[in-house]
């Protein structure tokens, strides 16, 4: 009897062992934790957001959700404040990233040119400090710096007979102030990328250009820009994603004002979700932000691949 059992068990165990040692099982086992992690922390919240976005529901009464179809999306896309927030976010992305690239290139070039000097390394580290600071703290610091009565910015301006400036009190000045803060904080990041790109250019190429009589703008146009454009595009992608979730500084300094001049998408979604507890509208706004991010990122990644292929 025992013998019979062992003979039937043996092939079963052998087949189990071979299954456990098989590629298919091992691949599944290695991938499973990541899939579970993504499903729980990314896919499920996203699916739930989409579910909420087609309901009229308050965050404090989720059990009283009423299905409204695409009403929340239609209302959002006809809401002048939401459209203004989209426009402001786009403006902020284009303007700040453009300035960041130009300023970062100049500074990176200076650091590369002076890299033989010992003290330059220390200076480069100091230059990184703004991007290490928490954006919320940056916002608070600048709300003091740009305080029209007691702030140091107007105090310094008064020293040269200028100002005072209503940094956050005027629609144009407020947007420029937000841009300045954003550029100040994130130029070091772009500088770091560009510097890495510049340092990767072989010195013999510079030498060859010099021998060929190339001027600085020839070097810039035919050697440096082609060499760094891949890494700059990567930087642009990361900064666009950053700008789409730009929130803290606006939240602390202007709350989207004066008027609607500095309202951005994330602040709008935050207000709907966590100040007004309108989870349906807030989720619809979040889904739209996600779709915009995916479209831009997909386009940019394709562009990046094309550049790499070239």
């Amino acid at each position: 009897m025992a013998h019979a059992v062992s003979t039937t068990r043996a092939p079963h165990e052998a087949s189990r062992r071979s299954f456990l040692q098989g590629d298919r099982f091992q691949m599944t086992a290695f991938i499973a934790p990541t899939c579970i992690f993504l499903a729980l922390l990314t896919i499920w919240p996203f699916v739930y957001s989409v579910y909420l976005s087609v309901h009229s529901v308050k965050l404090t009464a989720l059990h009283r959700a009423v299905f409204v179809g695409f009403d929340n999306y239609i209302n959002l896309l006809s809401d002048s404040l939401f459209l203004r927030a989209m426009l402001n976010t786009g403006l902020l992305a284009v303007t700040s990233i453009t300035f960041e690239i130009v300023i970062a290139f100049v500074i990176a070039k200076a650091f590369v040119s002076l890299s033989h000097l010992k003290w330059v390394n220390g200076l480069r580290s100091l230059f990184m400090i703004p991007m290490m600071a928490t954006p919320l703290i940056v916002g608070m610091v600048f709300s003091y710096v740009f305080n029209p009565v007691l702030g140091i910015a107007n105090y310094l301006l008064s020293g040269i007979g200028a100002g005072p400036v209503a940094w956050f009190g005027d629609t144009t000045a407020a947007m420029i102030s937000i841009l300045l803060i954003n550029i100040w904080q994130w130029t070091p990041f772009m500088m770091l990328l560009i510097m890495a790109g510049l340092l990767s250019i072989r010195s013999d190429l510079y030498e060859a250009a010099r021998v060929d009589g190339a001027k600085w703008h020839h070097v810039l146009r035919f050697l440096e820009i082609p060499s760094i454009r891949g890494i700059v595009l990567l930087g642009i992608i990361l900064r666009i994603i950053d700008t789409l979730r730009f929130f803290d500084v606006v939240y602390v300094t202007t709350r989207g004002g004066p008027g609607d001049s500095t309202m951005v998408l994330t602040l709008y979604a935050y207000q709907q979700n966590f100040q007004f507890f309108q989870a349906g509208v807030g989720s619809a706004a979040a889904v739209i932000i996600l779709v915009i991010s995916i479209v831009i990122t997909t386009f940019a990644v394709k562009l990046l691949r094309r550049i790499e292929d070239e």
Partner: protein
Amino acid sequence: MNNARLISSISIAALLAASAAAAQETDWKSQLGDHADKTLRVMTITDPFIDSMNAVKDGFTQATGAKVEIDGYGYDALHEKQLLACSQNDGAYDVLLIDGIWIGEFAEAGCLDSVEEKLAENADVFAWDDFTPAGAGQASWEGQRMCLPVGTYYELMYYRTDLFEKAGIKVPETFDELKEAAATFTNNPDFPGVFGYAMNNKRGAAAGQQWFEWIYSAGGKPWVSNEVGSQEPYKDQTPTLNSQESIDLVQFFRDMVAYGPPGVEAFAWDERATAFAAGKLAMINDWSVRAQIANDPQQSQIAGKFKAALMPHKAGGKTVSPVGGWIACVNTHGAQKDAAWDYLKWFASKEIHREFVLEGGPPSRLSAMQDKDVQAKYPWTEVLYEAQKESWFELRPRHPLAFQLIDTVGAQVNKAIIGEKSAKEAMDGAQDDVTRLLEQNGLL
């Protein structure tokens, strides 16, 4: 007649003295339960009275053995944190101090236990009738007393006595007089570095609350059935945001920008209080709790140089003093409700409230406002007592959409203040926005 009055005054004084003496002798150990080894957690705003709460909390520990931890958060963060915790049935905090205007939102989300039963059991200790009527009104919702109004504020106007003496002008009582006085101090070489007035102009809640705080004194009202003293203020919520009184008021806000410091269009509570304490403003209106900051020589350059007055009103009208502040409630999801109720019984009592007020807390009881020691320490308390007589607790909406509605109005008011829209265009916009919001949420 005079003799009768004298006798009745002496009797009342004797009664008050006797009750004060009795209050001082309260044996809290017998009044409260034993909560040794418990830690009671209180969540509140980081307004100046949090220090006063901390200053008196050891008394509760001595009486019950329970430790008291008081955590403070900023205004928006507190609202967000308390409501989110409630939606998740979170009982981490036993006592919640909420803004009086949030009560509808919290009551309808099922976050609070009603205080009615406890009041009936301990009527003498809770002494409900001693709370200012407007404060008591704020702590009630749909006919039920839900919380205890321990941190009631009234909005007053503060003015620099030294500057007014030098200018030789009277304290303004009407909007026109306020404009004139503000103009006197602005860009005047006799008052270098001083501006006349700074209003709460920042986009959103700041400008929105300002509109609600001033509208009754401007002769208007926020919606149809919300008359001062109305028994059914929410019966007809059709907004009246673009009434002539409202448009005139918003135009007045716009005009006042000329008498503020540069950037005043983005000023909210903190910027105004800081500028006043720094001696840059001749006048501001602010919640009574912030007078402490201006009167603290450590933080202020104008300590002892200012006085309070009632808020100004439209010529021919009268001041309806804005009421606000914080009400203490028991978290319905809390696990230590006995200790929480005992804490409120103790903290809201006349005796401890007086201690709390003498430590800098906002006087919320009539007895505290009339207390000679309190009046001597905080001279504006007498004006506060006058302000509470003509106040209306439904001045700002208190229903579940209050936060969003105030923000919506504030966005439009701010557009008029910065000149992006005329006062009429802005308030027509506010009327449309608020009507749509109320309709979408079934309130119209």
